[in-house]
Each structure stands twice: as structure tokens, then as C-alpha cells.
């Protein structure tokens, strides 16, 4: 693994190691040689809990950590549903950020376009490039490359019914 990463490092600017969900061996393998980490979290207890443990591992078991260096970490909050967060039935951005205390890279909204894209076998950024989720991913990527783009909490374009519903719920 170290050898492969070394070869890729020479040829590419960015090498992304996706890791299986959770905190098992696969995740540890993916993070081992990393220079920085993007932690993808759903606003859910189980997901935030795993992320907390992953953050602990990033700071203790990776090569970088063992060399005494600091691992830069970014949080990508995904499957975020602004309406449910507003009505108090989903952990809000502030909650998750306060608990995990690492900088926020972006917020990807819950969106049917993601499932559609995954059915088609393509990333949402390619299958549905104009969707809110695709926009959020593109902006997150640009932030990762150092661009300074303001993070906005995604809102869906709402129909009249949704507005009424939200007004009732508020």
C-alpha cells in the first residue's frame, strides 16, 4: 500500500482514498498514509459517533500522527435536511460542529438526485450537475483546494405546500 501511494503521489496532485463506512480495518487502511482527511458525516448519532472515533484514530494511528505531525481534518456534512433541522428533528450543523470540533468543508443536502445518480452509476456531479447536491460537492472540492467560498446551508426550492407546512411546523 505504501508503495502504491508513493507511486501515485508522483503522478497526481490529489489521490483520494475512499474508505468503507464505519471504523473498521478498511477505514484504518485508507487513512494510514493520508496527508489530510475529509470526514463525511450524516447528522445522526451513529454517524457522528463513528466520526469522533475516526478523528481519534487520525490523530493516533496514522503515519503522520506517528511522525508527530498534525493531520489536517475537514468535515463534510451530508444528507442534511434543512427542514428537519429547522423543526428540531435532526442534529443541526452547529451541533455536529460543536461535538466534533473540526472545520467544516461543506454541507451536502439530502437529495433524490444522489440516488438517481447512483442508480446510473455516475457521481451526482456528473449525472445531475445542476442539482443542489452536485453544487455542494463542487464547492467543497474548491474549498479543499484552498478557495475561499462562503458555506451556505442548503435550502431546497420549495413549493407552496412546503411553505405552508413549514409555517405550520414553526
Amino acid at each position, binding site marked *: 500500500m505504501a508503495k502504491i501511494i508513493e507511486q501515485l503521489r508522483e503522478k497526481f496532485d490529489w489521490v483520494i482514498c475512499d474508505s468503507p463506512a464505519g471504523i*473498521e480495518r478498511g477505514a484504518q487502511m485508507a487513512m494510514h498514509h493520508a496527508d489530510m482527511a475529509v470526514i463525511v458525516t450524516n447528522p445522526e*448519532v451513529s454517524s*457522528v*459517533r463513528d466520526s469522533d472515533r475516526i478523528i481519534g484514530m487520525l490523530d*493516533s494511528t496514522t503515519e503522520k500522527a506517528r511522525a508527530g505531525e498534525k493531520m489536517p481534518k475537514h468535515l463534510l456534512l451530508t444528507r442534511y435536511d434543512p427542514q428537519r433541522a429547522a423543526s428540531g428533528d435532526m442534529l443541526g450543523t452547529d451541533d455536529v460542529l460543536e461535538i466534533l470540533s473540526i472545520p467544516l468543508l461543506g454541507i451536502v443536502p439530502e437529495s433524490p438526485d444522489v440516488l438517481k445518480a447512483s442508480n446510473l452509476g455516475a457521481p451526482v456531479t456528473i449525472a445531475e450537475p445542476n442539482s443542489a447536491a452536485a453544487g455542494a460537492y463542487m464547492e467543497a472540492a474548491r474549498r479543499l483546494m484552498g478557495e475561499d467560498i462562503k458555506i451556505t446551508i442548503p435550502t431546497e426550492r420549495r413549493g407552496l405546500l412546503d411553505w405552508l407546512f413549514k409555517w405550520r411546523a414553526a
Partner: protein
Amino acid sequence: MSFLSNLFNKRSSAPIARDRLQILLAHERMSVDGGNQDDLLAKLHREIMEVIKRHISVDQDKVQIKMDRGAQCSVLEIDVEVPGLTDRVAKKD
């Protein structure tokens, strides 16, 4: 008390999730500092693999290690699936 007020007021679940997480993580962060169990298992896995590999060639995923921690006793379960004896035996040295 935030738990009670949630129950009676808006019945929103996010503050409860937040409280649960804070308690959970406070506990877990403590035990992680004193030695991470997953870390220990990964280490055991690696070293057991090394020993086995000296004699038999087995795949990584044929060695499963589990730890069940109980109040009275903990069980370390090591499950090694070896190929039939007529299969390859590592010829080393």
C-alpha cells in the same frame, strides 16, 4: 432537565440526540485515551498474521479476531481458516 422539557414542549428529537452523543462520546473518548480496542485488535491481527504466515499461507480475511468485553470476563476469539493441508505450504528457509 432539557430531556423533560423536550418531552413536554416541542417533542423535537435533535436536542436529545445531542445530549446522548455528548454522554456517549465523553465516555468513549476516555476509554480511547487509555488504549483503543480497535487499535489493539488491529495490532493483534497483524502480529498473529505474521506468525501464521511464517508457516502457512493464508489470506488476511481468513483470520478473524473478536473481543467481547464483559464485566466478569472478556473473551478474545481468534478464528483462523487454513487451507487444506495438501494445499500450498509456505516454503521458507
